[in-house]
């Protein structure tokens, strides 16, 4: 469903992604690992259509369409979901209004009528249970006054509401205690089907104990320097990123 070929992107003339190739098929889980500053979030943002970053070379196709030509809201409506590393606060906008707008935009895109208030609230209730998120959170403004862990849970809640085809989860595990981590991972697993795919961006192997990847890619200084099966994650955990640096002859 997603083909990334030789993708280069940067900001203000500074190149951050230096030629990325990744192929994701329906139903696959890919993990992207790598030290801080290697470009993981940038890759996620470019896929989601953040115009702050300029694509300078390469191609991305999504279900055969040129993804790079699509507006960010159309990418979202076409099924791409980004779980933000740092979810954004929007004071004054209630989670309910925000989610209703989002869900109805997705429905409109698929030629469906907007949900009635009661159907919408029913859907909210169902999904809240699924990700074990407290009602007091969904009654507040978007992410306002949420703790770090609550923000991450809220991302998974939104993912559950929108049922994406391709979910990109950017460090959804960081800052979570072990219980929250389990809840988040379970949420992701419950939402998993044969058709949809997930790209899990993470620093640590521990999330991958819960969400088992089919492929692990190591992103380093804007390049994928290693790709393999799930065993690569264990190797990384054991030997640390220095091992990669050594292999690259950097030290």
């Amino acid at each position, binding site marked *: 469903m997603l083909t990334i070929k030789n993708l280069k992107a940067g*900001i*203000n003339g500074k190149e951050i992604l230096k030629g990325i190739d990744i192929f994701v098929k329906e139903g696959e889980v890919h993990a992207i690992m790598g030290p801080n500053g290697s470009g993981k979030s940038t890759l996620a943002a470019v896929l*989601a*259509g*953040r*115009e*702050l970053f300029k694509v300078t070379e390469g191609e991305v196709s999504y279900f055969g369409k040129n993804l790079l030509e699509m*507006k*960010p*809201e159309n990418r*979202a*409506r076409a099924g791409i*979901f*980004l779980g*933000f590393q*740092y*979810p*954004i*606060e*929007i*004071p*004054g*906008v*209630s989670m309910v*209004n*925000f*989610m209703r*707008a*989002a869900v109805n*935009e*997705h429905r409109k*895109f698929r030629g469906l009528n907007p949900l009635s208030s009661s159907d919408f609230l029913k859907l909210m209730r169902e999904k809240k249970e699924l990700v074990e998120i407290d009602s007091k959170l969904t009654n507040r*403004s*978007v992410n306002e006054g949420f703790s770090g862990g609550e923000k991450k849970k809220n991302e998974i809640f*939104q993912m559950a509401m*929108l049922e994406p085809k391709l979910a990109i989860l950017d460090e959804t595990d960081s800052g979570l205690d072990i219980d929250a981590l389990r809840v988040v991972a379970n949420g992701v697993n419950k939402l998993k089907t044969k058709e949809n795919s997930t790209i899990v961006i993470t620093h640590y192997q521990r999330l991958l104990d819960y969400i088992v990847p089919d492929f692990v890619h190591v992103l380093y200084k804007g390049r994928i320097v290693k790709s393999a099966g799930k065993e690569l994650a264990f190797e990384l955990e054991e030997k640390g990123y220095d091992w990669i640096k050594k292999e690259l002859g950097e030290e």
Partner: protein
Amino acid sequence: MHPLGFTCGEIASLSWGKQIDLLGKNHKIKIKKNKIKTASKQVPESAIDMENENDNIINEVTQGEYKYGFVTDIESDSIPKGINEDIVRLISEKKNEPAFMLDFRLKAYRKWLTMEMPRWAHLKIPEINYHDIIYYSIPRQAAKYKSIDEVDPVLKDTFNKLGIPLEEQKHLAGVAVDAVMDSISVKTTFKETLAESGIIFCSMSEAIKEHPDLIKKYLGSVVPYGDNYFAALNSAVFSDGSFVYIPKGIRCPMELSTYFRINAANTGQFERTLIIADDESYVSYLEGCTAPRRDENQLHAAVVEIIALEHAEVKYSTVQNWYPGDKNGKGGIYNFVTKRGICKGDNSKISWTQVETGSAITWKYPGCILKGNNSTGEFFSVAVTNNYQQADTGTKMIHLGANTKSRILSKGISAGRSNNSYRGLVKMTKNAENSRNFSQCDSLLLGDKCGAHTFPYIDVQNKTSIVEHEATTSKIGEDQIFYCNQRGISTEDAVGLIVNGYVKEVINRLPMEFAVEAQKLLQISLEGSVG
């Protein structure tokens, strides 16, 4: 001495006094100034790029269109351009006014000649040639219609297009309307129904003829003719407007509203509204305004006076949508308005709610004189400026009685290259013991070419009163927009969501139907201003 017991220069006039010393000499004044909230802390290194990004978004989105800019093709009966004593006499004569009215007008005119246009506002006002304005223009054959069948179909159409049907059966249930075009009231609906409970709701012209005692007693009692430059001009040449009297103990059973429409070119609209709420009465009143899209500026200088007697309550709401000018700042209405209410009786209450989206320049400070003990004044405002619009608006709360309370909530939104200022005066006089004020002034910036300014003036003359002032400035961040986009919400809708959230507290105070209207209006005025 003025009938209210103080001289004009002292309190009622628009003199602002000293701007508050923000360090707060007086220990009773609590000030939290400029808590700056931004939502874009997480990636500080990208701040500069975000600015560029904002520019791109601002530049790329299409411009919102003013939807009420059409002109009604109807012949009008105008007097010659310009102003002098003969013109003032002619207006009074055209309206068949009693001698006391002409007298009032002439005094005001002579006073106006001695005055100068105020310059203190944070506004750039081009020179206005007062001799180039037509002061009185009425649609031909518009002599107040008795029955709806007599109203010229062209006029009916005009108001229909504006969403203000003049036929009672078609109208929003529970709303009575006085429709004013240029210098005259075209039709007042539900007049008879209201009269059954003794409520007077009619045009100002009628009130002058039919209720001269009330007019003599109250006209100019809250805004004296010499109050300020524009009030003096209005007092000299005002043409029409609405008059409301709610008798003792009556709760007005429906919303009263006046819809002001400027149609004729080169014409100024100078309307006058007077609302009197007798003891233990209640009324909610709403005014709306629109004007055609024209390249030249037009002047609108209105005066509104409210009197609330013992235990009376008046809610006054405005949805101001005068033509704001085009996106390059050409044309638009100059909206210079004096609105003031007096809580004359004990335990009375006056609330101003305003949604200001239109006009090229807005200059207005609806205020309350809290004379009765335990009286309450409120001001809730949303002021939006886009493109080259300028607004200097706020309120004045003058506490004279003991245990008086005032609350101010001002929400400014600036976009484009516009400038939006809040100016508020809170004055606690010596006798206003144990009084309280709380002011909250928020500014929201869309883009970085616009400006928001807050000018609080605080004057406390007793030791038992408390004045609190809070101000915040925030900006819609590119990251907030992107977050919405990523959930499938377009940029326009994202701005709409954020703005609606921001103004919710004020909009919710409007009567239901108008709240929905006002929300749409906000969206339209901000179209193409994202940042």
